[in-house]
């Protein structure tokens, strides 16, 4: 099948690649662009392991074609940490044991990163509801929820301190 030219801004960098129009975004990220942080748990939009941030929204990257993302700005787990090290959420997942096998973790953190921008002061209910698109088979979610709530309050205290 004839390939098309796709341009993306991923984790702050301009990239381009050739891909068939039918290729899913997750496959292009993993196979063509070497970004193996987002994982594949189902390829049917149920598990959220492939979650990336696309133009400011959490998107399951097995749900769309790379062609549909042409021109988009994407953040993957590889782009969540800043120049000064790990993001608060990444540390918080470690601190609160919010991961075990780690397979869901990239999608979880990428989703939580957007969730906390959408709602910087979530309740436990907000977090449980807002994370319901991401499945985890290991943790039972309790420590994931804890990690996200702790990250939210840490980010908020940092914001207050800066003001």
């Amino acid at each position, binding site marked *: *099948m004839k390939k098309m030219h796709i341009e993306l801004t991923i984790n702050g960098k301009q990239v381009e690649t050739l891909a*068939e129009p*039918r*290729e899913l975004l997750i*496959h292009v990220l*993993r*196979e063509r662009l*070497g*970004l*193996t*942080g*987002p*994982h*594949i*748990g*189902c*390829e*049917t939009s*149920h*598990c959220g*392991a492939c979650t990336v941030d696309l133009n400011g929204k959490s998107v399951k990257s097995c749900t769309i074609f790379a062609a549909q993302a042409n021109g988009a700005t994407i953040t*993957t*787990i*590889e782009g*969540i*940490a800043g120049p000064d090290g*790990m993001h608060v959420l*990444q*540390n918080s*997942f*470690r*601190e609160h*044991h919010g*991961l*075990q*096998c*780690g*397979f*869901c*973790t*990239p999608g979880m*953190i990428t989703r939580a990163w957007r969730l906390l921008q959408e709602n910087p002061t979530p309740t436990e209910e907000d*977090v*449980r*509801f807002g*994370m*319901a*698109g*991401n*499945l*985890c*088979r*290991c*943790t*039972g*979610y*309790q*420590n*994931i*929820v804890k990690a996200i709530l702790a990250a939210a309050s840490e980010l908020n205290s940092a914001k207050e301190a800066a003001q």
Partner: protein
Amino acid sequence: MNDQTPTHDERVAGLKGLGSSRKRVEDARFTQGKGNYVDDIKMAGMVYGDFVRSQYAHARIKSVDSTAAKAVPGVIAVLLAADLAPLGLHWMPTLAGDKQMVLADGKVLFQGQEIAFVVAEDKYALADALELVVVDYEELPVVVDPFKAMLPDAPVLREDLAGQTKGAHGERVHHNHIFRWELGDKPAVEAVVADADVVAEEMVYYHRTHPCPLETCGCVASMDKINGKLTLWGTFQAPHVVRTVASLLSGIPESNIRVVSPDIGGGFGNKVGVYPGYICSIVASIVTGRPVKWIEDRMDNLMATAFARDYWMDGKIAATKEGKITGLWCHVTADHGAFDACADPTKFPAGFFNICTGSYDIPVAWLGVDGVYTNKAPGGVAYRCSFRVTEAAYFIERMIEVLAIKLNMDAAELRRINFIRKDQFPYNSALGWEYDSGDYHTAWDKALKAVNYDALRAEQTQRVADFKAGKTRSLMGIGLSFFTEIVGAGPIKNCDILGMGMFDSCEIRIHPTGSALARLGTISQGQGHATTFAQILATEIGIPADQIVIEEGDTDTAPYGLGTYGSRSTPVAGAATALAGRKIRAKAQMIAAYLLEVHDNDLEWDVDRFVVKGVPERFKTMKEIAYASYHQAIPGLEPGLEAVSYYDPPNMTYPFGAYICVMDIDADTGVADIRSFYALDDCGTRINPMIIEGQVHGGATEAFAIAMGQEIAYDEMGNNKSATLMDFFIPTAWETPHYTTDHTVTPSPHHPIGAKGVGESPNVGGVPAFSNAVHDAFRPFGLTQSHMPHDHWRIWRIAEQLGLHG
């Protein structure tokens, strides 16, 4: 020592050893997307393989035409059974002593069975080619019900076994029969049942489900033709076993096979077995001369690799009118699907199901298990469970509840009067186990008190009255569960897999500058071995856990071990780690004695150093000793500081626990709302409380899923109705309950550090807690038994059948 010397307590804390909630060393890479899972592996020239799978549950394969598939640009090869036959690889042995088709040999026996293996340059060309392979089927009658499979005129499923009246586990009494396993004293039990004051009888079904780790199974096989070395990366819970099997099957010397388990995205039993995908990838790599990657998709995973449970457990429990249990009778019809591909120790065709007398002092018992073939996927793996222990725990915990109904007695009290007492340990059960230790009454009392049991019962009584008075439509269930696990397989005298004893191992190297490397025969799939095994060792050898690197999963470097499943890592490899550490310490003591110019016996161990008794300022730290071992000639001792231990456990370990679930049920919608879930675990010595708690949350959530909705269901035609995550229930953060964890500590008397293992306890104990809560809500209205999974519809149906909808 001087003022600068850290105190004893500071040094202990600095080790981050046993008992510390040390943060995990694995997390830095996983939280940054830098894990290395099998699908992340990319090699020069790598190609992709995938299967054409059967649409039918039972059919003869008249022909397979791959002409069109081969014409797709990028397609390199199509393998059929006929291509594997000359190598003798069209069938493979299963871990249960049966054999299984690698590629369909004349017929298919379950939907999703592998028929052809197609290899192509990329995934999309591969998908195109799979569509174009034309299989001509002749449908055959399908049997999905194990009872119907055993009828005299049932269709013959395994034609390859025609005329074989002996199987791997004794006599086969029918063409679809696999084995009969019998234990205990049948006449004695029958006599007890005949004379008992009270007998409760029930058929308890534990439905078919699937471990469904978030990462599916897969591998990359690479045959290097120049040096003759085969490397196989894959999702293997037992990499050394895979190496041995690969060698036996292929004839390649074991020394020329390297098996590597990279990071594994959850296993839960799914990744113990050997699957056709591994064999076909190896063959394809040999044939094409290129690395071949096979990754199953979710549908393949749910349809073809490793289901769990599917046990029909028929029980009779006898008791005095005061409630003292006098005997237990149990017959299981075990649906194994098309091939017996259970991953149980060889001598245990039904795993450790004979732990089904549970936590109770039952004087006589009988167990019979009949394994049966049906047109369903093979497997029968231990899904977060030690070989059928979940089935056993569910059975006995349901039988106790049914007996309580019969006796009109409180089920908590019935358990209490039947528990094995603390002074009875070590306790020999009627079905042949020696329980090493336990203190059930203490745990039970602590649990009942923690949930305020009496108040809950009073609330429930009020709720029933209100319901009957039309004041509420909500019912309340209190789900009790007390379980005894049997883990840590196992003693070589009775536990082996394919003849290999189920020992495990640890090899330690102390570096000259005092840090260390330890390698084990196990493999983490999320349990955090790199964190916890370093903790065991830190306490044993006085080197901080942060300076101990743990490696597992590469058969070229790790010592031989039987892998990680059945909660065996801590009981077996954890023991090997402690004992290898003790060997290090023994040599270190001799070195220290030389350096300090005293006799070995004049030294005592103090956290991280040997100290001359009574002279605290004279000591050598482990770090100093390590340096000396490489730099100084010490008379009578070899240089270096290394040790290895292969540990054959003297007994299994027996973790136990008390779980209590409180549930509110809407009688009109069938929706169950988990109000609270309390989990008390006794896993002996606790290595890392944070990780234990995480294991309990995760296992309890899998139990929640299984009890409340998760199921691999088939229709009469053998179509798998639950092969996507749309249909197969995996709870999200939204419906998953909140857990309260608690513990008691009864160390294992025979384990070097007293640890027992915990990973599977919450699944074993959790399922009966959830299920008993549903049953308990309807007990006042006459319900005795209703099969899992208790999804909304099934709960609604219970209410309907009990006439609660008016």
